[in-house]
Structures are given as structure tokens and as C-alpha cells.
């Protein structure tokens, strides 16, 4: 076992405490102290050190049951049945790696590197382990095709770039104490964490006298705990309400005219849209009421409060942007922040992507010079040979740098299955022949899982690095078993924007016959004739190299010993503080140097589906389309508090806390003779899932919620008895790249004793 510099005096005989942490993609990165006895973790504690403590949630505290799960993959596997059938045989590492190497070389020789599809995922979030090393290896092998677009946030990211030219639009959480009003729009930190101190900061802001309003189709734990007022809103209509709020603010003269004048461009165009001068429709609260199901007076009240109770923080969650036209909601939220002058001041908030402390770029201190953008219209430079020089994709913000995925060599993640099935003939940049999948349960987590299964079946070869036999791993030809972050050392930067690092000291030796992703690359690189220089450094050397590039890690050894580095900030992070305080010397990193209420870069696209000012736009699966006659309920696919996406899915302690099931309102349940606890089917043209009805007042009528992440498990008749939300979701992204995970229409039916007669 590796040297453990963090060992401290044990409280009991034979127990060593190893300072480590938890770093899945839950919205946190948290401190865990592993109590190790005779090479085995017997229990955990979390942060008991100096404030602010970074306390792990139930997911991290349950980690022993994941680490020591009997379902862990123990040795390399080779498929023996049909692909996806889940039948495998044990093979040795040499045979597994030789097979992968042979396939990589064959595909490269036969079809070229672009035929290799690399699907990295967020299953592990350390800076070293996970997809980092495989990506570097495949790049050195001549490159690969990969996706653009991240389901969590692509709509919010696009809107943030279009409006502000950056994703660093957030404040550190301590600044919430300066807010008089906090609007939690589709934002549920009690379940989705949003950095570990966030829920505590919201609670303290409330105790400090802030008024808190929540806009959400569900009465979530965050609504229940923090909100003074709950405004349920019909999914996919958030932009309409935000635009109607803008109407109130304009009509009643509640604008911050000085701010608009000094810091923004394009307000007049937005005003004309809002007031109806450009299309004849005044976007009043009365206009928005039947769309949103929010009473007009409630919209008016929130608009007045937001414009007058300054400073006010409009925190625009990512969930409402995971819709068919998601970037319009995010843009409308950003613009509302600008119209009211709530940007760049303590207690305000700019919405946007909401990164605050950016470890990767040593953060908010980095400045961009819009005058030094390179011309990417003739081709985009990339370290990946397959992408290098490819032209910008249409509908991209390619003139901006940072946060955009402009190259036309990439395929939107939501269209990966379609691209595999249709390739060049379908208008995609390449024909895909093999998939190299690392830390990604993509079959489960990309939209339209049934189509995903069809696509994975069609490939010539699939290799998966995994810890468990996930729905994706079942479709592999070769499964390479990977260890967890308790079995290796790593550094976890904060998830979104808190000023700290977690150093994950290896707590126990790797279990079974598993390796890290990096060790796999060390063994695979020479087999595919890739120079192994990087891979021959040991883990700690690489971690020291990575850390040396970050100005905020001054003392590696102390961070390693303590397992955490907490960075003291002289004052709370306030996005755009400099731009607002001293605009002459600090332009916004947009092309105009100002906040772009109307964005010329968007106008140039000449695409009515991605207008220069934010608009409320429908789509073919909206509540008001003909399809709603057949499938009258709107599906939400929220995050579960007992999983991290599809990770931690089979942990008994967590499973016992909350059943997987579908939230449905009593009115909708009654109409279908459904009682709480009944088995129900939720279905549309893409698929059918079977789960348990959770009949509750805490969801608005007309809406059903199935938490995403449960494992796709089709039975012989094709019914997904695991009830993976993505069996039902659309795989058609918005022009800005938003994933329509919350834009599916469905029907629900009680499962009768003879399910086949139910139809």
C-alpha cells in the first residue's frame, strides 16, 4: 500500500485515519476521513476541522457500501453472449488489453481515427483519474471523435456566454447574506448540493432576514426548507414568466436605467419584443398566465419585488434550461438581472452559468482580452488531431473563447446515438465504428435510451472502463474493472465555485483485480505504440505537476497531509465587481465589451430558433402541441438525493432512504385509478418504464417526475423495469445545445394484473 502521509493518532487500537474525500458528480466535493483497520475501511467521519467545514452528505457517508459492494467488477471481462445481453467470461489483463489494442489499431487502419468514438463521463471527478489519461492516450494515438454538450448545463452555458462572454457569473455563497431577496428558480440545492456549503448559506441568509421565493413545478426539499413563497410553474414555460416580469418592470418604470445605459447593449430590441412592438403580442402577466399556470398577479408581485428589493439574487438553476429551448430561459433570467442592475454588487447575482471560484483558471482573477481573440472562422485549432482545423459548427458562439464547443468535428452528446446509427449519410462528420467509454454510464444518462441500445448494438467494438456492471457496461465487448477513489490518490477541485481543494489520499489497496484508469493507460499505451513518457510518471508526480500549474495551491504537502486546502478569500466573490466598478478599464468579456441583452453574434446566425434577444419559444413536444392529446402529462427528470446521477444506484443504505418512484399529483392519479404505491407504466413513443406511483401534492397537476439515474433495465417485452428516465426523453437538442430532458410528454397508466390487456 502507498505511503500515507495523512495518518494520525488512531482513536482506537489499530485504526489509522486517512484524510480523503468524496468526488462524484453530485454537486459537491467533500471531506471524508476513512477509519482504516487491517487494510479495510471500517467507518467514516467527515470534516471536523476548522470552518468552513466541508461536510459530506448521505451519499459520501454511505461510501463503504459502494466500495465493498459484492457487485463491484472484480476482473476483466469478455462478452460471450449477444451484445447487451450481459453475458461475460473472465479473462486476464493481458488478453483484455491486447484485444482493446488490436481493435484500436484495426479501426484506425481501416476507417481512420475519426471512427473511434471516445465517450468520457463524469463518474469520477478527480483531476487525475477518470477519463483524463485515456483521452490523452487516444489523442496521442491520432485522435478521436467526441461529443460537445453536457446534459447538466449546456443551455445555461450557452446563454451565459452569449450574454456575458464568460461562465464565471456566480458569487461565493457567503455573499448571500447581503441579499434582501433570493429567488430560487428551478434550483434545489438541498438535493443537488451546488457546492457543499450552499444549503447552509441559504438557511443563514433566511435567518438573516432575506425573503426567499422559489419557482419550481415541484415542492422540493429546498422549497419546503427555505422558501417563504412557492410559485409552481408549468415545465418549459419559465422564459414566458421571466419575459412577463420584464414587461412589468418596463411598464412600471422599475428599470435601472443608468445600469442599462452604462453596461448593456441591445435593451431597445428586447423592450420592443416584450412590449409587442416587434410581433404584436404584449408579453404581459396576463399573456403569461395561461402559458405558465402562474396567476398574473403573482408574476407582477415577484417582478416588483425583484426590481425594488435590491440587492436581489436571482439564482437561475440549470433544470429549467434542460428543456427543448432551454437557453431562452437562461437568457431571459440573465437579462432580468441586467435590467434591474443586480449585477456586480454584493447581494446581487448575475444568474448565468454561476461558476464563482474557478480553480481551473485560478479563477475570477483571470482577465480576458476580447481584442485578442483568434479568428476561428477558417478552422479551430485543437490538440486532438481529428478536430484540429475543423470549421466552426453553425449556431456556435465560436468568436468567444472559453466555455464554447465550437468545432464541427464534434457531435452533440444528445445526438450520439443517432450519429452512430446514421453517420455521414445522416449529416454527421464521420461514420463511427467503435466506442471507448470511460467513467460514463452513457446509455443511461444520454437521452433516448432505447435508441442508445440500438446504437451500441450496431458498433463493431465497445470497450468500457467501469466499477460496476452498469447498463452501459452490459453493452461492452471488453469491460476493464476500475478501482474507486478510496483505492488511489487524487485531487478534487471544487464542483462549481467554492474556494477549496480536496486531496484524496489513498485509503486502502485496490480491491480485487482492478486498476486505475491511469494504470490501464500505462499498460495499453505501449500496445498501441503511444509514447509512454507521461504515463510512466507515478501518480504523485503527476498530481504535483498538475498542482504546480494552479497558483492557488501554494503548499502541496500541507494539502496532502490535511486532505483539504481551504482558501481564505479577502472578500466574497462577486461576479463582475470590477466591470461594474470600473467599466473603462474592465470591459465584459463579450465582443461588445458590454452585457449583451441583444447579441450580435446570435443575430448573425439568422436562425429564428435562436434569436438575438431572449424569447419564449415552443417546440414539437410542448404542452400545447397535438402530441399532448396522446401524451397529456409533462415529464420532469429531477435529481435524486439518494444517488449521484446513476452512480451510487445500488447502495442499500441509500436505497432504504427513498424508493425510486414517480411523483404524480392526486388529480392525475385519481383520473387513472392510481393509488399511492401502485405499479404504474409511464410511456410515450420512445419507450415505457415501470415504477411505483408516489401520489403527492408536492408536484403540480399535469406533471410527473421520475428522478434520472435509475438503471435502464429492459425486460423481454422491452419495458424498462429499472425506470430510467431517459427511456422517455427526447434526443433533439436546442440550437444552443440544451438537452430536452425535461421536455418529454408522457402518459401514465396503472399496471393491471394482465399488463398486456392494459393497452
Amino acid at each position, binding site marked *: 500500500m502507498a505511503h500515507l502521509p495523512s495518518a494520525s493518532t488512531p482513536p482506537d487500537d489499530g485504526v489509522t485515519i486517512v484524510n480523503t474525500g468524496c468526488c462524484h458528480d453530485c454537486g459537491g466535493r467533500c471531506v471524508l476521513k476513512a477509519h482504516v483497520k487491517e487494510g479495510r475501511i471500517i467507518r467514516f467521519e*467527515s470534516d471536523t476541522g476548522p470552518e468552513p467545514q466541508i461536510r459530506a452528505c*448521505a451519499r459520501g*457517508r*454511505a461510501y463503504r457500501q459502494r466500495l465493498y459492494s459484492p457487485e463491484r467488477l472484480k476482473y476483466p471481462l469478455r462478452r460471450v453472449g449477444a451484445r447487451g445481453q450481459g453475458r461475460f467470461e473472465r479473462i486476464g489483463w493481458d488478453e483484455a488489453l491486447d484485444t482493446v489494442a488490436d481493435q484500436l489499431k484495426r479501426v484506425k487502419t481501416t476507417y481512420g481515427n475519426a471512427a473511434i468514438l471516445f465517450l468520457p463521463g463524469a463518474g469520477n471527478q478527480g483531476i487525475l483519474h477518470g477519463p483524463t489519461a485515456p483521452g490523452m492516450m487516444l489523442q496521442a494515438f491520432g485522435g478521436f471523435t467526441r461529443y460537445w454538450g453536457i446534459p447538466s448545463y449546456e443551455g445555461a452555458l450557452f446563454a451565459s456566454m452569449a450574454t456575458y462572454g464568460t461562465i464565471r457569473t456566480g458569487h461565493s455563497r457567503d455573499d448571500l447574506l447581503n441579499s434582501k431577496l433570493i429567488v430560487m428558480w428551478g434550483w434545489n440545492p438541498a438535493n443537488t448540493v451546488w457546492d457543499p456549503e450552499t*444549503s*447552509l448559506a441559504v438557511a443563514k441568509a433566511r435567518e438573516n432576514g432575506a425573503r426567499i421565493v422559489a419557482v419550481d413545478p415541484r415542492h422540493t*426539499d429546498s422549497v419546503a*426548507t427555505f422558501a417563504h413563497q412557492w410559485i409552481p410553474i408549468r415545465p418549459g414555460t419559465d422564459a414566458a414568466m421571466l419575459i412577463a416580469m420584464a414587461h412589468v418592470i418596463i411598464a412600471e418604470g422599475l428599470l435601472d436605467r443608468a445600469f442599462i445605459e452604462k453596461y448593456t447593449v441591445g435593451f431597445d430590441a428586447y423592450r420592443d419584443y416584450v412590449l409587442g412592438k416587434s410581433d404584436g403580442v404584449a408579453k404581459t402577466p396576463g399573456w403569461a398566465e395561461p402559458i405558465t399556470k402562474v396567476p398574473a398577479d403573482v408574476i407582477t408581485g415577484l417582478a416588483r419585488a425583484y426590481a425594488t428589493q435590491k440587492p436581489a439574487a436571482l439564482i437561475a438553476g440549470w433544470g429549467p434550461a434542460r428543456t427543448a429551448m432551454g437557453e431562452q430561459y437562461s437568457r431571459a433570467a440573465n437579462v432580468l438581472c441586467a435590467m434591474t442592475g443586480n449585477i456586480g454588487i454584493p447581494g446581487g447575482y448575475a444568474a448565468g452559468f454561476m461558476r464563482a471560484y474557478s480553480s481551473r483558471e485560478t479563477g475570477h482573477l483571470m482577465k480576458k482580452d476580447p481584442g485578442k481573440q483568434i479568428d476561428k472562422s477558417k478552422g479551430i485549432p485543437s490538440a486532438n488531431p481529428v478536430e484540429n482545423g475543423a470549421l466552426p459548427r453553425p449556431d456556435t458562439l465560436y468568436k468567444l473563447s472559453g466555455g464554447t464547443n465550437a468545432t464541427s468535428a464534434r457531435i452533440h452528446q444528445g445526438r450520439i446515438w443517432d450519429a452512430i446509427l446514421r453517420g455521414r449519410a445522416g449529416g454527421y462528420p464521420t461514420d463511427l465504428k467503435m466506442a471507448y467509454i470511460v467513467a460514463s454510464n452513457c446509455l443511461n444518462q444520454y437521452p433516448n435510451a432505447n435508441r442508445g441500445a440500438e446504437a451500441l448494438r450496431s458498433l463493431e467494438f465497445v470497450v468500457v472502463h467501469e466499477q460496476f456492471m452498469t447498463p452501459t457496461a452490459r453493452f461492452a465487448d471488453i469491460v476493464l474493472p476500475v478501482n474507486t477513489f478510496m483505492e488511489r490518490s487524487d485531487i478534487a477541485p471544487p464542483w462549481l465555485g467554492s474556494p477549496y481543494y480536496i486531496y484524496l489520499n489513498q485509503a486502502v489497496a485496490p480491491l480485487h483485480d482492478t486498476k486505475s484508469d491511469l494504470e490501464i493507460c500505462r499498460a495499453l499505451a505501449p500496445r498501441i505504440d503511444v509514447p509512454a513518457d507521461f504515463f510512466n510518471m507515478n501518480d504523485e508526480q503527476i498530481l504535483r505537476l498538475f498542482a504546480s500549474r494552479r497558483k492557488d495551491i501554494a503548499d502541496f504537502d500541507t494539502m496532502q497531509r490535511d486532505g483539504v486546502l481551504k482558501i481564505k478569500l479577502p472578500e466574497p466573490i462577486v461576479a463582475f465587481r470590477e466591470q461594474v466598478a470600473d467599466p473603462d478599464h474592465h470591459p465584459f468579456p463579450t465582443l461588445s465589451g458590454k452585457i449583451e441583452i441583444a447579441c450580435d453574434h446570435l443575430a448573425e446566425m439568422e436562425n429564428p430558433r435562436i434569436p438575438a434577444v431572449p424569447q419564449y419559444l415552443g417546440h414539437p413536444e410542448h404542452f400545447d402541441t397535438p402530441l399532448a392529446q396522446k401524451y397529456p402529462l409533462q415529464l420532469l427528470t429531477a435529481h435524486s438525493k439518494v444517488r449521484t446521477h446513476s452512480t451510487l444506484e445500488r447502495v442499500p443504505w441509500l436505497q432504504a*432512504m*427513498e424508493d425510486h418512484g414517480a411523483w404524480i399529483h392526486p388529480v392525475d392519479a385519481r383520473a387513472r385509478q392510481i393509488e399511492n404505491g401502485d405499479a404504474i407504466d409511464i410511456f410515450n413513443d420512445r419507450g415505457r418504464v415501470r415504477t411505483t406511483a408516489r401520489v403527492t401534492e408536492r408536484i403540480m397537476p399535469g406533471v410527473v417526475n421520475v428522478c434520472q439515474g435509475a438503471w435502464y433495465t429492459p425486460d423481454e417485452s422491452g419495458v424498462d423495469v429499472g425506470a430510467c428516465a431517459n427511456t422517455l426523453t427526447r434526443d433533439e437538442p436546442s440550437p444552443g445545445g440544451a438537452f430536452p430532458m425535461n421536455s418529454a410528454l408522457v402518459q401514465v397508466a396503472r399496471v393491471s394484473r394482465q399488463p398486456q390487456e392494459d393497452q
Partner: protein
Amino acid sequence: MAASMGIYFDQTRCTGCYTCVVACKDWYDIAAAAVNLMRVSCIERGTFPDLFAAYLASPCYHCAQPPCIAACPAAAITKRAADGIVVVDRDQCVGVDHCPHKCLKACPWNAPQFGPEPNAKMQKCELCLDRLASGRQPVCVDACPMFALDAGPLEALQARYGDGREAEGFKFRKRFNPSAIFKPKTE
């Protein structure tokens, strides 16, 4: 007289995240379901869109006059003189084959817990007395991401947090006099 230990729960902060429940399970290595020394329940009222929801964390409240002690036919449960912590001697407990969960039936808050094993003997929250003895807080208190839990001498808790004795889902029983202080959630 020695201090009587009690527990504080800030119901206004609890988001129902179950971290206390899982931390307790992990610390004492207790399997899923069955035995829950700490429990979190959800209280919901109202009809859409006028709703109220709160969570209640329920360890043992270490009553001044514990009904479980009075109910136990084997004198297996005692209240420690030194600190008032209610503990069970599992060697003394006769098990569920010989006693129909009398302690559990007597407790309004389900603190006595029984596993699925044959002739299961009672287990309960003992306020992590080993951790207290080594100067640490109970594991649930140290785990709560919302800092909604505290433990200490009842008088000290009252001095610090006031004397709220009821909360949503928790009715004060004068004759048991639970050693619990609450900041209750109100509509």
C-alpha cells in the same frame, strides 16, 4: 447532581438529506432497513399549491422518566446516573420471542429498535456515549451538513437555544419529559 444530556434539533434547517441516518448506520455498521437508531420522518400538510412540509430527526430523546424503562420486564434499560443517557443492556434483554416489544410500544418515538434476526434484542441510540467520553459529539451531530443538531447537558442547550419543547411531528409528553430542545418549524 450530574448534568442530564439532551439533544437539540433545529427543524427549520433540516432538509431531509438523511446524512445523520447514514452516518449513524456507518459508524455502528448497521445494515440497511431494520434497525434505525436515528430516523428522519417527513411531515406534510395541505393541498396544492398551499403546502407545508417539515422533517423531524428522531434519535432517542433520553427522557427524564423514560417509559421504556417502566415497560421493560427484564430491567434491561437504565438511565445512567452520571449523564442521564438511557442505555440498554442487551444481555439482560429477553428478546422479541419472549417480550412483545414492550419498550417499543411504550415509546412514542420508536427509539427502541429490533433487527430481523431470531429473538432480536433491543438496540437504541445511546447518544454515542463512547464519542462523548472522548470529547467528540455524537456522529449525527458531527455529520449534519446543516448544523441542525447539537447534544449536551440539557441546561446548556436551553441556555443556548431556548426552551422549545415541541416541533412539527413531535408532541411533548410531560410525564416522560424528553430531554429534547427544538427550534420548531412553523407555517
